[in-house]
């Protein structure tokens, strides 16, 4: 990887070496750990990627709804850096994939516009020795829990990658005239509605584009997060995240679920 910190710490090498000798680490709970084993995978190690990133400045027009491409780019870049580094660690361990990926953004006191982007997950490898890497030959990534991972495999699907789309959007303020005209009335605010619509659509489309690049059959567990980070109330990041999946030749082995009524309240 060209733009990674050049000299990875010595301990990092030692850590990966120890994992190669058979010790595994994982932030999976005991339930998830046993289910991943049950699904025919073995956890290899906790893998992480992080990047501390400074986002630039972009001017916004007070009365205009628009995408802030520079900020969108920053959010994309920083997440990609973190995700790619996590994937690199997983590759180095010879993993087939990474499950339970969490993507976080943390703000620290180091500077107003600096944030840490971090991706953490558990690298896993199939116990039957058949590679389960994705269409690009890389370990698959997925934010599914151990429980979801087990269920997904039982239904004959395999995760391909954690896909995301992001869009930082500035939503126009309403002019004084507009505000006065609608005071005391029940009325839709079309400029807000339209801006939010467009921003969401952009984020979702970008996520779907990533999924089709992986040749996925669909995206499961997709969700849309909206955050203003530190940009004030009218600038919002729309982040769409989900796990792209493909159909495999495996047969469906999920038995019909048992219905239960719990007696506790």
């Amino acid at each position, binding site marked *: 990887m060209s733009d990674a*910190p050049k000299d990875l*710490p010595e301990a*990092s090498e030692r850590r990966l070496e120890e994992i190669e000798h058979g010790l595994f680490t*994982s932030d999976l709970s005991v339930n998830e750990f046993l289910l991943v084993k049950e699904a025919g995978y073995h956890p290899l190690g906790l893998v992480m990627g*992080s990047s501390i990133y400074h986002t630039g400045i972009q001017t916004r027009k007070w009365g205009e709804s628009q995408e802030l491409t520079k900020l969108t780019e920053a959010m994309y870049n920083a997440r990609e850096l973190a995700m790619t580094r996590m994937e690199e660690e997983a590759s180095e361990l010879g993993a087939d994939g990474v499950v339970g990926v969490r993507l976080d953004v943390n703000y620290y006191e180091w500077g107003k516009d600096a944030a840490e982007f971090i991706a953490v997950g558990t690298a896993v490898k199939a116990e039957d020795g058949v590679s389960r890497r994705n269409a690009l030959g890389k370990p698959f990534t997925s934010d599914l829990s151990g429980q979801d991972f087990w269920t997904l495999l039982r239904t004959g699907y395999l995760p391909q990658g954690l896909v995301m789309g992001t869009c930082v959007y500035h939503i126009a303020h309403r002019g004084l005239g507009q505000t006065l005209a609608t005071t005391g009335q029940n009325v839709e605010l079309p400029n807000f509605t339209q801006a939010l619509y467009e921003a969401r659509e952009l984020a979702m489309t970008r996520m779907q584009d990533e999924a089709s690049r992986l040749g996925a059959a669909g995206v499961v567990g997709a969700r849309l997060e909206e955050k203003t980070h530190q940009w004030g109330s009218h600038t919002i990041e729309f982040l769409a995240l989900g796990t792209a999946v493909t159909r495999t030749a495996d047969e469906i082995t999920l038995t019909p679920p048992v219905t239960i009524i719990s007696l506790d309240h």
Partner: protein
Amino acid sequence: MSTTPPRPHPVPEGLPAAVRQALAVAEPRHGAHAGLTSDLTIDETLILHSIAWAPRDLVVGLSVQSVPSVIWSWGSGEIELASRAHARAFAHAVARLHAEAVAVGAHGVVGVHVERRILSSHIEVELVGTAVAPIDARPLPDAQVFVSDLPARDFALLFVAGWRPVALAVGASFTYAPRRAVGAALRQQTQNVELTNYTEALYSARATAMERMQRAALDAHGAGIVDVTVTEGPLHFAAHAIGFTAWGTVVTPTPNARSIDPITTVSLDDTVSAFDVASLA
């Protein structure tokens, strides 16, 4: 325990018969540890009973290590004094917890809550857990008594699947995050750019801490570490010092390790969806 039961608190005369009876039950008897404290819930106690284990006592381990408060502000590389103090605080707290568990004849400690306080002048680690043992079991050799932060429920599940906890593995590292030069900070003001100095500092703290945790797991002859808890980030009292800590329970398979064969269920309970008026604001 001695053969003659100590009776430090004889049941006072003049109490109602029911109270005297209740107190008598709580009195230590020959060779048995009487009176039981545990922070397990009823469910957890019953789950333990289902695998023929029972709680023995609530056990505690605590250690406070002082650190010179000048070490946090300037320097480069790892803040070794802090890392060492953290490791010592954990090691001493675990040793005390372990000794208490051994004293009550337990085979292990489950559900250990880890409370940590990292301040500029000292590092404090407090561990509280429940000592457990198979019902009517004899004490184990000290070295085989395990300490684990897994809840009793997870311990029982591991036990059923044929795995066992071995120890609590901890790794920590504190590192200075180098400051950016004023010129660089100004130049980068309007740019999208990765701050490589911070990224590298965080990477180095993380790699060192994780390596230490893994080393501890290897020393305990474990097969792996589950349920790893990771905390990271700058310390609130020193913005240019980064701390990274990881801990988890070391586990190893027993000869009876087997698959758990889960069944899927759908709950027919109605999910409660409350309407929140505040969401309209």
